[in-house]
């Protein structure tokens, strides 16, 4: 199977105006139908990179951005690009589950409704998302309860389902299982294995173990720099950089 570069990051540098987490000259391809893992110690710039791919960084003050990000070969920072359309193509799941303060159903309808979807199609998208996130059976009878009544693990899978209702092409996950128990984590991970058949998945895992478990492709970040990247099988068994080896063997981190 040949690899198709869905997202291409070219010499990207980002610095926030308050001087925190930054990226230095990162170049990296993210592949379609693969689980792309970005990992490394905290403060390495992984989340910054994730949030650059759907331009959520626009919400915070970015002092400086150089380089470019291409989605299907098109620059996502081009001035005439429709940011809202971009965010529908590039969905995101966050570290902490954040159900919007509405019912489960309203959470699932939220994105498609904004995109102009109406009528029964809304419920179809909702059900499809819930099934893909492996939570349909648990919530199908309680769709009109407040989303906050779900357990933490359910909430996070609801958030994944909510992202899927927009039928995005790329799914970004920022430590999606950091607050979850092992069983919920396993459910999310197995959902991801299904989803990668159709989507480009980019995940910042919450541990090296998770990184090694799910990675088709892996990239190791340290203090804003990309140290190395390549197929997960190789990177986790025969890393070419000493720092990568030190990190995955637990010598620091």
């Amino acid at each position: 199977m040949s690899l198709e570069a869905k997202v291409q990051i070219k010499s990207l540098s980002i610095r926030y105006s308050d001087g925190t987490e930054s990226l230095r000259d990162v170049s990296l391809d993210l592949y379609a139908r693969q689980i792309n893992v970005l990992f490394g110690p905290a403060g390495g710039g992984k989340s910054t990179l994730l949030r650059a791919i759907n331009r959520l960084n626009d919400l915070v003050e970015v002092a400086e951005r150089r380089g470019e990000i291409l989605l299907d070969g098109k620059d996502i920072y081009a001035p005439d690009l429709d940011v809202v359309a971009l965010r529908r193509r590039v969905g995101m799941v966050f570290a902490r589950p954040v159900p919007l303060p509405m019912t489960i159903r309203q959470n699932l309808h939220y994105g498609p409704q904004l995109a102009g979807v109406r009528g029964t199609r809304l419920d179809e998208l909702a059900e499809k998302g819930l099934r893909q996130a492996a939570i349909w059976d648990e919530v199908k009878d309680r769709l009109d309860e407040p989303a906050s009544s779900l357990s933490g693990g359910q909430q996070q899978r609801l958030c994944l389902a909510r992202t899927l209702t927009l039928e995005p092409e790329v799914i970004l996950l920022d430590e999606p299982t950091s607050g979850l128990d092992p069983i919920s984590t396993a459910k999310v991970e197995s959902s991801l294995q299904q989803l990668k058949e159709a989507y480009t998945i980019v995940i910042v895992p919450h541990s090296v173990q998770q990184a090694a478990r799910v990675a088709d492709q892996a990239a190791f970040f340290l203090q804003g720099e990309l140290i190395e990247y390549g197929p997960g099988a190789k990177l986790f068994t025969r890393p070419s950089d000493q720092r990568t080896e030190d990190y995955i063997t637990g010598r620091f981190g």
Partner: protein
Amino acid sequence: MSRQASQRVAFALISLAAALVIVAILFIAGTIAVQGMGALSWEFLTGVPGDGMKAGGIMPAIIGTLLLTLGTAVTAVPLGVGAAIYLSEYSQDSGFTRAIRIAIINLAGIPSVVYGLFGLGLFVLFMRFGTSILAGSLTLGIMTLPVIISTAEEALRAVPQSFRVVSTSLGATRWQTIRQVVLPQALPGILTGVILGLERAAGETAPILFTVAAFFLPRLPSSIFDQTMALPYHLFVISTQVPGMPIRIQYGTALVLLCFVLSMNVAATLVRSRFRRRRQW
């Protein structure tokens, strides 16, 4: 004196001070309630004043205060909530927003009688509204603006940032996020602030002295360019300007005004506590 003894003395003094405050408040409210109760009757609430205000009711003053409160709301709520949305959702910290904040602080500190002067100068004379409900509402509205802006901004800021981020990630524009997620969550807080602001406006006398209040006008106003009686000013008039005023009517008027204002206070408290129980974050 031992440490324990000095603690005991200090705590006793502090408790005494608090008790004094409680007693003072209860005494004031109690006096008005007890003395004013006797004057309350259907005729008092719905009648017009007669016999040089020494008899009859205070209905025109009640209606006038209602109208002024409404006018204040119409002036201050859109501007105040809009400004709060700007400060909380759109603006970044800059010299410009700092200027707005200093202006708000300044507005909040201006004595109410100075608002009265300003209303007289701008609305009554310069814009030729005359002493009218319009001039009075605008004056009270501007006076209320800082209260509404600061409470509404606080309510907006209390909505977790994560909701905004998630909504944006789902393809919402900034305004869609505000409309669909932020405002509904902040609404009870905003409402509380609005009611508290209007409560203050409803009880004010000094700003309406020269802009709207009529000494004696035993009919209802017919347009916003009319003068009107108002409860606070009426209380002032009958307690200082009319010799031989029956004390019962004075207390009755004070009680009605107090009830009017405190019922808004209670409304604000109810909104706040209902919201605390229902909120999901």
